[in-house]
């Protein structure tokens, strides 16, 4: 059986580490024994569906909410004990778009924010709001989602923190501004040694510069690993199988998405490619190709395991025909 999806990065120098972190909101478990490990200097994508616990994790890391149980360390500090010091070293873009004071003008809010961060780089802030075309004289409450988000990004970046915690940073931005923002983030990371914890639903936008990924669902960490390892280990196999083939449980939980017909299969399997091919061969399946997934498809596979099996009804139909239109042809 191939190895299960990795969830341990403890060999690395870690900027964020949580241990058995749990959060209960009345009867709802938002987090269950989360063991998040973000390596120092990494751009770590934390992905998961809505309500998976991503924002709750961030709020615990910043001591905005208290965990029900478990531990957390941020840059070697305990967020509950050293909350002010932790927040002084974090650039935070929250999920909510109405963050800040709606009654304050954008320029005054930036000035207000700057006074809380002695390391505020005024020249850099000035360059950023020119680049983002921020109207400093407008009240925050009257800004559009995208304009407000750009102000939040300046607030997070301009004090050049060692850790950036970005919760949906491109939410509300138009495609051009998304592109600009990603460019700014890339420049920032190359200028300033920074660890980035980034929660997003738009994973493909960050594929070019993210290097680690964590997958969280229903408050549980499903996987966390370097992106390179994900690309190497999570492959989509297309194979021909003999009639009546009975290898459905060949890889256990390591086969994340399985589309099988009478004559072929289209499976997404986690594991060493040689080992997976060997197992297919032993089971009588002839692998036609094994392709690596882009980050978006890999995320879908990790978050949404799927099993479709079609027998006899249309034996001439290929497994790839059973994919949803968006997945076909990839």
């Amino acid at each position, binding site marked *: 059986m191939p190895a299960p999806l990795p969830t341990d990065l403890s060999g690395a120098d870690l900027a964020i580490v949580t241990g058995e972190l749990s959060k209960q909101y009345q009867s709802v478990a938002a987090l269950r024994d989360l063991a998040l490990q973000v390596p*120092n200097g990494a751009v770590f994508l934390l992905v998961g569906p809505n309500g998976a616990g991503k924002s709750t994790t961030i709020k615990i890391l910043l001591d905005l909410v208290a965990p029900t149980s478990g531990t957390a360390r941020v840059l070697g500090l305990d967020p509950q004990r050293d909350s002010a*010091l932790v927040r002084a070293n974090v650039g*935070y873009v929250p999920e909510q778009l109405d963050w800040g004071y709606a009654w304050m003008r954008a320029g005054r809010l930036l000035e*207000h924010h700057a006074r*809380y961060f002695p390391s505020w780089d005024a020249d850099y802030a000035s360059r950023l709001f020119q680049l983002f075309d921020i109207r400093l004289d407008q009240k925050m409450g009257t800004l559009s989602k995208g304009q407000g988000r750009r102000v939040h990004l300046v607030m997070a970046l301009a004090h050049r923190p060692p*850790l950036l915690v970005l919760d949906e940073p491109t939410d509300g931005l138009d495609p051009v501004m998304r592109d600009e923002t990603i460019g700014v983030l890339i420049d920032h990371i190359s200028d300033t*040694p920074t660890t980035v914890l980034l929660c997003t639903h738009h994973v493909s936008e960050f594929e070019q510069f993210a290097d680690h990924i964590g997958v969280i669902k229903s408050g549980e960490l499903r996987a966390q690993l370097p992106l390179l390892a994900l690309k190497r280990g999570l492959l989509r196999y297309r194979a021909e199988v003999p009639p009546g083939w009975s290898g459905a449980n060949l890889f256990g939980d390591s086969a994340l998405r399985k589309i099988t017909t009478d004559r072929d299969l289209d499976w997404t399997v986690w594991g060493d490619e040689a080992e997976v091919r060997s197992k297919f061969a032993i089971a009588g399946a002839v692998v036609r190709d094994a392709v690596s997934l882009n980050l978006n498809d890999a995320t879908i596979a990790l978050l949404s395991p799927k099993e479709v099996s079609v027998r006899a009804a249309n034996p001439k139909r290929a497994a790839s025909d059973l994919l949803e239109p968006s997945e076909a042809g990839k």
Partner: protein
Amino acid sequence: MTSIPMHTPPRWSDVAVEQIRAVGLRVRVFGALLFGAFMLYAFVAIRVAMRDHAATEAHIRHSVTKFDFTPDISILITYLAMLLPVLIWAEENPKRRTYHLAMPVGRSVHALTKTFAGWVWLITGTAVFLAVVVSVDAVTSNIEGSATLLATRVAAWEWLVPFTAVTISYLLASAAGVGAQTPLIWLVGPPIIYVSAGMAIGLLGYPHLAESMFTLFSGNYGAAAALGGRFIAIDAAGPRVTRWLLSTALWGAAAATLLVAVSRRRATS
């Protein structure tokens, strides 16, 4: 850990100064309206004094319009002081306070610093109010040829009552502003329940119990003594000061304790 040095949190004095500026910006309309009301009062008072002075017949004189100062007058600004925290913490109830809480300052210290910033403006406003009262009194006394408040009528400690009264009122209201989702309900609800319960108990045939309940407000060290210097015997100068000091200390400590307790509150979601 990191390859760049760790950043330090801001100095408390920098945060306090910035909070005073930001809160000032927040309450500037309220302050301007209040200042306008003070000016209106000054204008009316001086006009009335001039008219009274010009009147030769005693029946035209409107003695009821004589503007004066007693500690009771602080009740007026005490009520206004209750509204200030509602304004300062509006849009920032515990569910929406993540911006305030995400700043690099301890949660409790930050809430108390913001409260302090509001208090600075409140005390400034109170001082302006008293300055207007004294100025108007000086002008009207001069017009009427009578003695000024400063010269004769008000004991030195009585000038402190408005400051302590608004402070207690402000601290109590701030506890509601910092700790409650809907502070107005907490400011209005408990007094209504208290008065209604006292009256109901009295009507049900337990007048002594009702009376005991009302000592919380009107007793020797009740809220009325602390907030307005009320129900203090006029002719007992020594005990008046003692009762005011004790009631102020008691109510001030209670309000401050409540505020410190709720200031530790995190975001609720």
